[in-house]
């Protein structure tokens, strides 16, 4: 049993090699004979850790109340955010905790199959999960069966409808879902999809209960969460922190620049946060009014020497390339936005016009895609224009920006692939 006030929780006893099943059961206690009740899950107040922050129990309740003998639980360990490393860290530390949680969720909703999805571009994770599933299969024949799936790595492939569509039809493309909440299905079978970290927390709740879980965090956002801190840090790290920890103490623990210019919160579809707000607690409740978000647990630290517009432009260009090119506003709008940002950043003669175009296009694109990919980019760009407003002014007036000529950047963006080289299936 882990003491309730102790951190780390899901990274308990993390070493360079993932825990074996025996080590895992020694560290966390044996797997309880039955899954936790839905009430336990509700009492814990766990919200999804994949970005949207939807209460996990409500999702489980929705699927539990549906008919169907072949329900699926999907563990989403795709980790589409290039700046996020939490799922990789978690699965390299303790894959069995994630699988425990998935088994608990399968017990709650009555699922027969558990599909663990991890990108094929990360063979280490695939290996760890393969081993872990094999270990469990040898031990017991009861309960839901595990299967491992390896879709290609794309930013939108981890989006829930794209992942389900991949399992259904071998294409990682997001689907149009006009009505929410939308029940995802594989064939006719309802699907419960949760992030790998969420599953790990469910694994803990199943062992120790909802009240144990609430001992860390704030009353409205209980528990702990994994944060990937990159950018101006001594070394990129994944930390487990209690929700509600002030941002500056997270930066301190990560060994980051303590006097940054801004933070990019949530991931590449997230929002910049001005460094004035470093005292804000790390919860969605506190960051929401500041128009920022916890998102997928990403914090990118931008030091005073960096140029926020150039960083945003790099991200937007890559995000535009990662569009599935299904919806017109996303396929044409995102490259246009990236182009405008490039003009704003590098082309002093066109900067003022590009700024106006950017505002128009952000308004025109928002909410018009089948998935939230374009909305994420719009949110990122709008937050950049707001947070770096003074610096945008400099660019529009054509004043030289030293940082924009530098080749050193703080956001890591994968190399752009040509459109015909993008693999979707």
């Amino acid at each position, binding site marked *: 049993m882990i003491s309730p006030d102790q951190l780390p929780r899901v990274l308990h006893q993390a070493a360079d090699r993932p825990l074996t099943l025996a080590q895992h059961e020694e560290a966390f206690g044996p797997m309880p004979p039955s899954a936790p009740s839905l009430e336990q899950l509700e009492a814990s107040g766990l919200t999804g850790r994949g970005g949207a922050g939807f209460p996990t129990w409500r999702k489980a309740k929705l699927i539990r109340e549906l008919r169907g003998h072949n329900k699926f639980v999907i563990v989403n360990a795709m980790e589409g955010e290039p700046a996020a490393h939490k799922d990789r860290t978690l699965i390299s530390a303790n894959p069995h905790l994630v699988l425990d949680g998935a088994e608990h969720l399968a017990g709650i909703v009555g699922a027969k199959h558990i599909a663990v999805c991890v990108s094929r571009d990360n063979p280490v994770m695939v290996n760890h999960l393969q081993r872990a599933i094999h270990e469990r299969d040898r031990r017991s024949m009861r309960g839901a069966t595990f299967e491992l799936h390896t879709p290609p790595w794309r930013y939108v492939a981890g989006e829930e409808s794209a992942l389900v569509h991949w399992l259904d039809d071998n294409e990682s493309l997001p689907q149009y879902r006009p009505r929410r909440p939308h029940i995802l299905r594989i064939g006719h079978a309802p699907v419960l999809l949760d992030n790998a970290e969420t599953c790990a927390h469910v694994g803990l709740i199943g062992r120790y209960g909802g009240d144990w879980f609430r001992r860390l965090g704030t009353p409205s956002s209980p528990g702990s969460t994994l944060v990937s801190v990159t950018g101006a840090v001594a070394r990129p790290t994944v930390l487990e922190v209690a929700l509600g920890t002030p941002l500056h103490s997270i930066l301190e623990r990560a060994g980051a620049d303590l006097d940054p210019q801004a933070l990019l919160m949530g991931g590449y579809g997230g929002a910049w946060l001005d460094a004035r707000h470093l005292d804000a607690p790390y919860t969605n409740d506190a960051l929401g009014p500041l128009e920022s978000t916890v998102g997928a647990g990403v914090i990118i630290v931008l030091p005073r020497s960096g140029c926020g517009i150039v960083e945003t432009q790099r991200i937007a260009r890559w995000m535009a390339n990662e569009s599935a090119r*299904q919806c017109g506003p996303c396929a044409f709008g995102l490259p246009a936005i990236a182009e405008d940002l490039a003009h704003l950043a590098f082309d002093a003669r066109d900067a003022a016009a590009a700024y106006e175009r950017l505002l128009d296009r952000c308004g025109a694109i928002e909410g018009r895609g*089948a998935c939230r990919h374009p909305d994420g980019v719009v949110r990122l760009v709008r937050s950049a224009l707001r947070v770096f407003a003074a610096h945008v002014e400099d660019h529009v007036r054509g004043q030289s920006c030293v940082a924009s000529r530098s080749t050193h950047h703080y956001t890591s963006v994968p190399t752009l692939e040509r459109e015909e080289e993008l693999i979707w299936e």
Partner: protein
Amino acid sequence: MGVRRRTGGFVLLVNPILCDGFGHCAELAPDLVRMDEWGYPIITTEPVPLANLAALESARYAVRGCPRQALRIERVSDHP
């Protein structure tokens, strides 16, 4: 059939994946649909009262005229 109740409103919805930007809807329902710079429809999001027969008819034309069958009319009941 009886008398149709003309309370409530409707919205015109587009499936952005199906839509290929033919632009017929902007011709057929100019009050509800305008085009963005790439030729894809921007549809008014607030419900239109069903009593607005002209708008409803033009929306129906747009739905039937869409070559990709990407448009749909959805009734919204909570509109006054």
